[in-house]
């Protein structure tokens, strides 16, 4: 199949960018979307042009490194799928595909389709952990965790930190990412001692990173490659309010 690409090219963070059109020819259905871009890049290198820069690493949907807005949708048209797991069989011969980087003030473009997502690490630094020094753990089965709680915590913990939720949100909010981390830890008995500090400090960190507020559009859940539910945002709102009601945070 042959497709036309309109790709956002931007030399660096301070240079203006724009769309450039490329032809991707003799593409086969079993190629992944990124392999299609690889072949376009091989063509560009052969012509002595700079290839399209895009982040990617594991190419199996778990590292969270890749992420393109494809035809206006973060990670493209397939639900619950990262960009690297999207296959060309989901496109048709003659299609025009628009490819952009994540769009968000908090994720500045570094080059072409690569953005800076270091704000996510800083949100985690504000409290996205359980303080437990190496060596100080008690015997694992001394803390029983009811299966439904463990499963729910795991549902939140599947977040890969790709940032699609932010790219999809009209407000550029990082609420789903932040809630997934808070939900994962605060549901577990091990995470209870720090739950209120965690909620308050992570949300404060999120707000200081230029992410917008959540107004319940639900676009984040639709774009999330791990299908993380916005129920976790509700849970975190309760955690956050709980912190203020009990004034149990520092």
């Amino acid at each position, binding site marked *: 199949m042959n497709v036309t690409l309109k790709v956002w090219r931007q030399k660096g963070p301070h240079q203006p960018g724009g769309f450039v059109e490329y032809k991707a020819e003799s593409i086969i259905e*079993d190629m992944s979307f990124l392999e299609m871009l690889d072949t376009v890049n091989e063509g560009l290198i052969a012509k002595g042009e700079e290839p399209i820069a895009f982040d990617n690493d594991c190419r*199996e949907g*778990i590292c969270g490194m890749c992420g393109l807005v494809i035809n206006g949708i973060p990670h493209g048209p397939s639900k619950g799928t990262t960009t690297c797991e999207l296959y060309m069989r989901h496109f048709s011969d003659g299609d025009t595909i628009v490819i952009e980087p994540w769009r968000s003030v908090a994720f500045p473009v570094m080059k072409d389709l690569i953005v800076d997502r270091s704000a996510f*690490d800083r949100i985690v630094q504000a409290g996205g952990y359980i303080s437990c020094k190496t060596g100080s753990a008690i015997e694992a089965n001394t803390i029983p965790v009811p299966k439904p709680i463990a499963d729910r915590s795991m549902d939140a*913990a*599947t977040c890969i930190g790709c940032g699609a939720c932010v790219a999809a949100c009209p407000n550029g909010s990082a609420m789903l990412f932040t809630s997934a981390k808070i939900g994962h830890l605060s549901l577990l008995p091990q995470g209870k001692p720090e739950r209120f500090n965690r909620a308050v400090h992570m949300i404060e960190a999120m707000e200081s990173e230029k992410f917008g507020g959540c107004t319940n559009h639900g676009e984040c859940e639709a774009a999330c490659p791990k299908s993380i539910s916005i129920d976790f945002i509700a849970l975190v709102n309760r955690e956050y309010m709980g912190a203020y009601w009990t004034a149990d945070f520092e």
Partner: protein
Amino acid sequence: MKLDAKIPPGPLAEKWDNHLNTIKLVSPANKRKYRIIIVGSGLGGASAAASLAELGYDVECFCYQDSPRRAHSIAAQGGINATKNYPNDNDSIWRLFYDTIKGGDYRSREANVYRLAQVSANIIDQCVAQGVPFAREYGGQLANRSFGGAQVSRTFYARGQTGQQLLLGAYQALQRMIAAGKVTMHTRTEMLDLVLVEWRARGIVTRDMVTGDVRSYAADAVVLASGGYGNVFFLSTNAKGCNATAVWRAHKRGAAFANPCFTQIHPTCIPVSNEYQSKLTLMSESLRNDGRIWVPKEPGDKRPPNQIPEDERDYYLERRYPAFGNLVPRDVASRNAKMVCDEGRGVGISGLGVYLDFRDAINRLGKKVIEERYGNLFEMYERITGENPYEVPMRIYPASHYTMGGLWVDYNLMNNIPGLFVIGEANFSDHGANRLGASALMQGLADGYFVLPNTIGDFLALHRPDGLKADRDEFRTAEKEVKDNVKKLLSVNGSRSADSFHKELGKIVWDYCGMSRTREGLQKALSLIPALREEFWKDIKVPGDNEEINQSLEKAGRVAEFMELAELMCLDALNREESCGGHYREEYQTPEGEALRNDEEYAYVSVWEYSGEFSKPIFHKEPLQFEFVTPSQRSYK
């Protein structure tokens, strides 16, 4: 070269404890005066960085990704082994030790492996305390599953994402220490050289992958946790960015490289479907708990799998290995898949595939149970192949997955270069010639949480902090070499991309130093690789500049190192005239086609010393002594 493994004396079960009681300590007030560099932020690097920072050391951690959370440990699916014996199935430290030694085909050190088994239970405690959401039973207790190479259920798991969950635990601990100001994290930064001062590792040279800035960092010790070299094959289950540059640069500075030919080919990966494929995807070994592996009995049987009647199917692993069945170790499963495909019984368009069939498990347990156990893996398979594994059997084929070889280390995880520590997949220490499933996560975390934080103190206590700065001549010289190399790559201006060279290299290594090897094949590879390397330096094309994000430049630099490493792999494979674990030399097999070890002549670790660009590396042996187990022909029948 002096190779002293420093194995502590005494009975096997007491070695580690005795060692801990006798090695030196650094006092809490002095720890903060020491700076430690850690390269890599996977399970080994992140757990070490967090643990050392908690102890009070000043840590600088480096990773090439945009966040330490993305290191490729994240992709491990199936689980992590530990000797908790929660299922009451008679597991013990001894049994995990024995399974690992045997699984490694008696090519690893007894003392290291025993220590690994000893600390395995602490890892689970630590991870649970950090909030790793392991699978649970209804009573709230931790659940276990079985894995290849063992007859007990000792594997802990978090759906099909155990690696991600364990890494997030370590990453969160690391982020906590970054917030506390005890770790300085350098993301999108690549180590391009190791700096030695007076025959001691004192720092590294890095390139900032955003600005192209080349600079040095000095420290009291350097820890490499940079992973394996499986990407030498181009097509592998490794992430695209995984590379051997850190370990190879250290090797060129004098670090001994051990057992480079011990690479693991994982039996359950999605087969290659086209020539543009950029990577291979693993399907967790845990699938072999419920999936049955088969091919048609008749060569060339092209009927769709569901139309092939039961009596015309060959469940070859169950037939040949009744005791372990589909749960034989990885090397055995891979080799058997290759054998049936070589007989013309492979499935799929390429004929390079075997079926992994869940029909019987779905009939026995119901679709819901299978979905709960493997749902995300089934989804992943369907996304990639477009086929529904609940209805048609999966097709799988072996692929490069893990490298048991790596930089040589002693019992303290220190290399022959003083002050250079190597942990996780980057070292060679625990898995011998074949790694068992669910043991890589165990080793990475054992090294980072429990071994290195103790053993590094023994070295540092004898080397007072001297505040060495990265402006000495040794650093300047290394920086210049790195910059010259970058310039050279940018200036060749040939006609071929780094990927095209990488693919060609990968094919040579796969064909001649992959699942089975022969003397002739290896000799051929040893003439093809240097020729390709020469062509690389004449014809590589790297567009763009140094002073920006330049992914072509990054790739080209890594491929250049892989070329050299591939040659050493083949040399090592040629030297080892026996078959053991993942190293299968066709000349050395039993009448049944199993690996035929030669303990008389080859019960040693092959250790290679770099001797210059055009001279043959110098070969050394570290003899392996088996005091507590008796090496035997591995049998899974």
